[in-house]
């Protein structure tokens, strides 16, 4: 039986009914990891088979004992290597943290484990979640399973690949400016970024704290709902986590869309960089929604054109401070100080300690990470902070206001997730600005703190996945998932595993 194409919810029900054991399911997916990872390079570290089987057997014996477990109990999952997990290194795909073993689990990870899920391993990413192609991994780039010469997107590229290639039915990543939605779009799977504060950030290694959110990947919208149901909710260890009751996210999935007001953002749909095939996919989704009883309205987000600039000031500012802790004095990569390097300290005016920090950071952090640290340091510096950081905060407020106004007219927004299908490995890596500009449709949800989801929407003529994005007001995940689920049922996409054999 092809387990990889089933919905995780279905598979979970089969495990609960003992139609298949957790051991069999875990072995099945772990075998696929071993079979395909050499092709797609999605994983940074994988648990050995004995460890995985031990976890699986525990779940099986609990089920055998008649224990009532979560609907996801026994299902395998992969975790982006930005989330702390005991038992394996948590590297952020950085040389700096190559050997860092956290003494704790991220809250989101712990909740998955508590729900009886089986962690297979950690997925590759752009270093410290900075990038849109997973090419900024310090270890190796991951490959798009639909076209191996193309990137899987990023920064959660490895997570998207493990789901797209059927190596895991589920994965969780982090989304700071599109890092879940864009790789989901590139790899033909579903990806959700929840409302800021809905999922705890404790144990999520910070890139830009005011924008970071943990979100799930899956083939089926109902699976996104099931995973979010487990990981969402207040955490006293994260002061920014929202103290709100989490509604039942699955019970409303089948609600009809009649009367749903859908907004199409003019500024996105008219964007000069938007690929015509993606534009067509958005239009087709529009028609599909209309056929389901929804009404379509055009809306404007006048400050949309400032979103990339705003994002690329705020995120690097926060990153420059968040990544200051990697200074080699306490943990992480430390450069071996040769006498030559040490003697350099006398000419640089730095003391040996400072020299060690400078050399360690220079060697331990990658180019893109250093670029953003420098951008952020500059933008926060005395004399520049008003013009950059503080100005960006004001524009962020304007962008959020635009969304608030739009959502007075419509219930959800429909648009593209990314201007183009997956680009080629190496195609943009030397042009950071081009790389940044790709994020224009995704960063706004992070700036405004709203939930957003990307869904597959067919394929290009060349066989690359196409995707659309849906956005909803804060805390309206249930609505978003309802729309997504109905679109899936109405045929917007059919879950497909990229064939790698």
């Amino acid at each position, binding site marked *: 039986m092809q387990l990889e194409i089933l919905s995780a919810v279905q598979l979970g029900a089969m495990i609960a009914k003992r139609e298949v054991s957790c051991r069999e399911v875990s072995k099945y997916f772990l075998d696929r990891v071993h079979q395909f990872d050499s092709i797609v390079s999605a994983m940074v570290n994988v648990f050995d088979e004995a460890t995985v089987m031990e976890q699986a057997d525990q779940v099986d014996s609990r089920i055998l004992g008649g224990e009532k477990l979560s609907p996801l109990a026994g299902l395998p999952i992969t975790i982006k290597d930005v*989330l*702390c997990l005991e038992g394996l290194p*948590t590297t*952020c795909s950085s040389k700096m*943290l190559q050997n*860092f073993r*956290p*003494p*704790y689990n*991220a809250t989101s990870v712990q909740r998955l484990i508590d729900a009886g899920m089986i962690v297979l391993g950690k997925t590759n990413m752009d270093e410290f979640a900075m990038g849109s192609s997973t090419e900024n991994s310090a270890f190796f780039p991951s490959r798009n399973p639909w076209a191996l010469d193309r990137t899987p997107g990023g920064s959660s590229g490895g997570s998207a690949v493990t789901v797209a290639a059927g190596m895991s039915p589920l994965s969780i990543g982090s989304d700071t400016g599109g890092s879940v939605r864009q790789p989901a779009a590139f790899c033909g799977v579903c990806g959700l970024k929840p409302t800021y504060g809905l999922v705890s*950030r*404790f*144990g*999520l*290694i*910070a890139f*830009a*704290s*005011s924008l970071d959110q943990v979100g799930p990947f899956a083939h089926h919208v109902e699976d996104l709902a099931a995973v979010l149901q487990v990981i969402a909710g207040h955490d*006293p*260890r*994260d*002061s*920014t986590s929202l103290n709100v009751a989490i509604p039942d996210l699955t019970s409303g999935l089948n609600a009809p869309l009649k009367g749903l007001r859908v907004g199409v953002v003019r500024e996105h749909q008219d964007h000069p960089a938007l690929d015509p095939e993606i534009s067509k996919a958005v239009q087709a989704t529009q028609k599909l929604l209309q056929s389901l009883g929804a009404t379509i309205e055009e809306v404007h987000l006048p400050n949309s054109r400032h979103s990339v600039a705003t994002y690329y000031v705020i995120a690097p*500012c*926060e990153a*420059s*401070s968040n*990544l*200051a*802790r*990697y*200074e080699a*004095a*306490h*943990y992480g990569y430390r450069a071996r100080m040769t006498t030559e390097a040490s003697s350099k300290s006398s000419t640089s005016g730095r003391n*040996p*300690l*400072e020299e060690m*920090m400078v050399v360690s950071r220079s060697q331990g952090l990658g180019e893109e990470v250093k670029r953003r640290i420098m951008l952020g*340091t500059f933008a*926060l*510096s*005395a004399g520049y*902070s008003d013009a950059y*950081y503080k100005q960006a905060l004001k524009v962020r407020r304007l962008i959020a206001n635009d969304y608030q106004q739009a959502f007075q007219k419509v219930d959800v927004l429909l648009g593209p997730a990314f201007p183009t299908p997956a680009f080629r490995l190496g195609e943009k890596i030397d042009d950071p600005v081009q790389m940044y500009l790709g994020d224009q449709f995704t960063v706004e949800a992070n700036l405004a703190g709203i939930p957003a989801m990307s869904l597959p929407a067919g394929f290009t003529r060349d066989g690359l996945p196409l995707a659309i994005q849906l956005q909803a007001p804060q805390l309206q995940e249930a609505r978003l998932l309802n729309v997504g689920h109905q679109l899936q049922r109405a045929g917007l996409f059919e879950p497909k595993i990229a064939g790698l054999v």
Partner: protein
Amino acid sequence: MNQTPYRLVVGLEVHVQLSTETKLFCGCSTTFGAPPNTQVCPVCLGLPGSLPVLNEKAVQLAIRTGLALNCKIAEVTKWDRKNYFYPDLPKGYQISQFDQPICGEGYLDFPDPDAPETTQRVRLIRAHLEEDAGKSMHDEVHGRADSKIDLNRTGTPLLEIVSFPDLTSAAAAKAYLTELRLLLTYLGVSDCNMQEGSLRADANVNLHIPVDGNDIATPIVEVKNLNSFRAVERAIQYEAGRQFELWKQTGKTIKDAPKQTRGWDDEAGVTKAQREKEESADYRYFPDPDLVPLRVTEAMLSQQKVVLGESPSAARNRLQVNLGLKPYDADVIVSQGQSMVAYFDGVVAGGADPKRSSNWIQQDVMRTLKENDLSVEQFPISAARLSELLRAIDASVVDNTRGKSIFQYLLEHDATIPDAMAALGIVQVDSSEIETLCKELIDENPKVIAEARAGNAKALGSLIGAARKKNANADAKVVRELLQKMIDAM
């Protein structure tokens, strides 16, 4: 008073460690003196993925302090990151408060060191909460520089109290600091132990020199590493002299040089320039996105107003105005701390005369405490018991000398005053006995009586000794008075 050719201008920045059980943003203990790096967790170690969670107790203590310092308490306060690299700062930034401190402007009145019966006022700019850094220990023996870091202190809550440059002498700076420490201990917000670093002061010092009718200001110097009140006083004195000499040599004013940081070398008794690099640091403050702004509610304020208690200055005032103590005596008792004031109040409440209570406390009680290294809470004689003793003296049941013997006895025995008297063989002599005694003395010593009648007051002295021989419990004062009365009536 000021005979110098300049006016000294001093402002103090005081870091106070708040006495919370746990750190400002994590649950680690703040107890001093634990083995290095045993009071740490992922949060205060700044491990990847860890997040700060505010300790509300620290906020409460900051509000209490702010109220006692007459500060405007912010309605909304927030947290900012102060970014700089140092190995004892594991996150690479310190969580502090930049532009919305929890306590705004305020002031503190303190006894004027030049005129102890009056007060001086220092205005306060602000008081804000921040987390402490760790401790670096540099071991440079045998020529190999070895640095070790203890992060136990990292994340301990500090309240930084910044004054306006209102202090005009080294003595005033010390007096302000003394009053501030006293107030903080009264409030119970800090143990203010300078040796353990619970109270740290930096002084901003410069001079205003009158030249041709205008004041010329010398460059401002921030003096760090002031580890005792004496160091504060000495460093400011030294710095004043140094700045004046430097001005005479170079003529440099505040416009010619930026603020400089100098460290106090207590042994050498001098300030030394610190690295220029540190002064030009750009801390790139920005709001900490891991923490949410804090709204200070009316309930939070009133909760602290209730527990404010009596301030040292209010206590001084009450002891003077209500109980008639001299300013000096009131200050001695108040300076001993809140428990001493409570002890004094207990003695007076038991009915003893306030002045007699003050004298006994300042002499007998405080001497005993000092000799035995005790706190007033550990003092074996309760306020009620001492009050009973002093009332007995007030009522001439025993005389002062006998009183001291009883006091000594009570230090070692838990006894009532009558029991103590019995144990010591002290018997109150009734007035008819004294009268008989005095008559006998007059009959037996006609010569002395004649001298006394002739106006030699000293003559009666010899009779007192004789009276004590006849009856050891006779109160000398009472005997003398009665003798005088009987002689006068002759």
